């Protein structure tokens, strides 16, 4: 268990890592996550399960090198094991027939949207996917999303590939062309989720976001992952990670995500100086 069975780079900073985790593979559902501790001195970080294979007993995580832990993780190779892997945690995505669903993935958010998008499709929905990234190099899973969507719209902020612009522009385009979704699922950086949420609020389109606050235990024991939703404090690890976008206090989320900025920077610098 916990062994990396396969790894490939999807971009210079994004790795797809398949790990042996038979129990998790069997019980996980779309939208759930695991907590990973890379090594004995490591921190516990949440990562959404991008894909699972119950028969093989493996789960796949898609990880972008951002801080120390993700950077360390992405340096690991097949055959190595992580110290700890626990899950599946959080509530599964709420899947049913809505009619037309638009799923939006920004950056590695696409990896999180991927299994839920498939489940929406399997539940008979018309699925339109909008996937975006800052630049071509960071765009992931285009082919995979095409296989499970009725239509895929691709954007890059810098126009290095497909449509130049933001995912919000594409969603707005759809709505203005009378392609009104019955549900929007938006997963990506907080500013992106906030922008989508503001847009759909004006059209009163039900919208779900998957939040990524700092976590520790991932089982509801510490409260560090608390977010304000509809004025009520929720623990993202047990009450989420998916919430009604129109109720989420994105400012509070952004603020809490900055809690350890200094320390995170120091850790990453130390890792880099050690690599050199």
């Amino acid at each position, binding site marked *: 268990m916990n062994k990396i069975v396969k790894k490939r780079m999807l971009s210079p900073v994004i790795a797809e890592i398949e790990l042996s985790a038979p129990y998790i593979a069997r019980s996980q559902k779309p939208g759930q996550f695991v907590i990973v501790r890379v090594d004995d*001195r*490591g921190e516990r970080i949440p990562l959404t399960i991008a894909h699972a294979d119950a028969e093989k007993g493996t789960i796949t995580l898609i990880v972008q090198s951002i801080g120390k832990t993700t950077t360390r993780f992405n340096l690991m190779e097949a055959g190595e094991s992580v110290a*700890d892997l*626990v899950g599946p945690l959080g509530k599964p995505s709420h899947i049913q027939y809505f009619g037309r669903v638009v799923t939006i993935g920004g950056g590695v958010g696409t990896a999180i949207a991927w299994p839920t998008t498939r489940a929406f499709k399997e539940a008979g929905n018309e699925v339109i996917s909008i996937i975006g990234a800052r630049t071509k190099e960071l765009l992931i899973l285009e082919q995979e999303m095409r296989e499970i969507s009725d239509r895929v719209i691709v954007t890059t902020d810098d126009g290095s590939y497909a449509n130049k612009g933001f995912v919000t522009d594409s969603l707005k385009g759809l709505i203005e062309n009378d392609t009104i979704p019955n549900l929007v699922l938006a997963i990506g950086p907080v500013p992106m989720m906030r922008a989508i949420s503001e847009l759909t609020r004006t059209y009163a389109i039900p919208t779900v976001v998957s939040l990524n606050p700092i976590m520790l235990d991932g089982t509801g*024991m510490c*409260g560090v992952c*608390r977010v304000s939703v509809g004025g009520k404090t929720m623990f993202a690890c047990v009450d989420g990670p998916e919430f009604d976008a129109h109720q989420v206090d994105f400012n509070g989320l952004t603020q*809490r995500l*900055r809690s350890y900025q200094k320390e995170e920077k120091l850790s990453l610098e130390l890792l880099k100086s050690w690599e050199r």
Partner: protein
Amino acid sequence: MATLDKKERLKIQRHAMPEQDPMVRIANFEEVNFGFTPNLAIEEAQRCLLCPKPLCVAGCPVNIDIPSFINLIAEGKFTEAAKKIKETNSLPAICGRVCPQEEQCEGVCVIGKKGTPVAIGHLERFVADWERTHGEISVPGKRPATGKKVAVVGSGPAGLTVASELVQMGHAVTVFEALHVPGGVLAYGIPEFRLPKDILGSEVDYLKRLGVDIVTDFVVGKTSTLDELLESGYDAAFVGSGAGLPVFLNIPGENLNGVYSANEYLTRTNLMKSYLFPEYDTPIAKARGVVVFGGGNTAMDAVRTAKRFGTEHAYLIYRRSWEEMPARLEERHHAKAEGIEFVFLTAPTRFIGDESGWVKAVECIKMELGDPDASGRRRPVPIKGSEYMIDAELAVIAVGNGSNPLIPLTTPAIQTNKWGNIIVKDKSTSTTKSGVFAGGDIVRGGATVILAMGDGKRAAREIDVYLKSK
């Protein structure tokens, strides 16, 4: 050595526990108490009157044969003394350190009526440490394998105790623990300076040598449900999932950065070793002023942890006063010596943040004691208009814990009361689901290590009977 008569025994003064100097220990995370030397232990043991009807035994939740083990110490037979305790308590090195002795054995010791009671806790700790550091810890003989399997949820004192008892009865036991380290509160809550983690580690190793299988990183209810485990071949289960849910104050500003639940603050420090950051990856915030709310062991552990992080002003804010504090007496004295600033009859009303969203102060209100409440203690009531500010860039909320809802939520046949505690039948440990037993904080709400262990012991007997009847 000639045995002393009663008068001679009564003349000996209680021996103080040798400890790190307060000014030294607030700069490290090492254990405060050094422990008795053999000589100190023997002299202290000689104070015991070896009462024929010992009150201390009745005061001990698991009825350790206290005079017998103390007499063995007086005779210099330390290993035998340890064995004597282990007949009734499998974790003496831990209980000797964390039990509220002043409310239990020592609270009723006859000598304590006029003078100071025998230092039973320090003696218990002494023999357990002696056994661990001197030669072999013997692994007791087990009864022949019964072929029955028991699943234990949670590796706190309740789970560890039930596992140890059941395995010695010949049953196969698997303990499932959600976190990456076994021990429950002993691992993530109680700090190194009070309970060194290598002591917990050796107790866990001992269980493994007995044959207990401990599976970490396994959340029952998520990784597999309890029902799935029972279907997969376990004949019975014990739930010792604890009271691990943080309670917040529900006051404005609580989601500011720098406001922690005690669980988070202590887990970062103890489980994740953030006091060794950046050598260990998990960070923790430090501040010049820290406020901790609460009056129990958790609050005490948090505020003393803050002091050790170099906090200039570490305030313990409690709505009642010194006498009503539920924390162990020894910890209160230690905290005082370490320069913790106690602020009594005071409660927080809101947190004030700076422009970046960090807490910078807390507004508090003064309280006075009103009429007695259900617990018989006088209820603190706020004094109108007495609000004032305390500067603090870090706050820790330690006003209690709720019970962990995961097992009842995912195991419909297990019923809970209105506080979420698992209901047990007729003072037994059996739940409303046949073959599933429960004990410790998940049944009692936040209680103590020794009560959790006592439940584990009773549950083991009841599970044994259940398995034989099947």
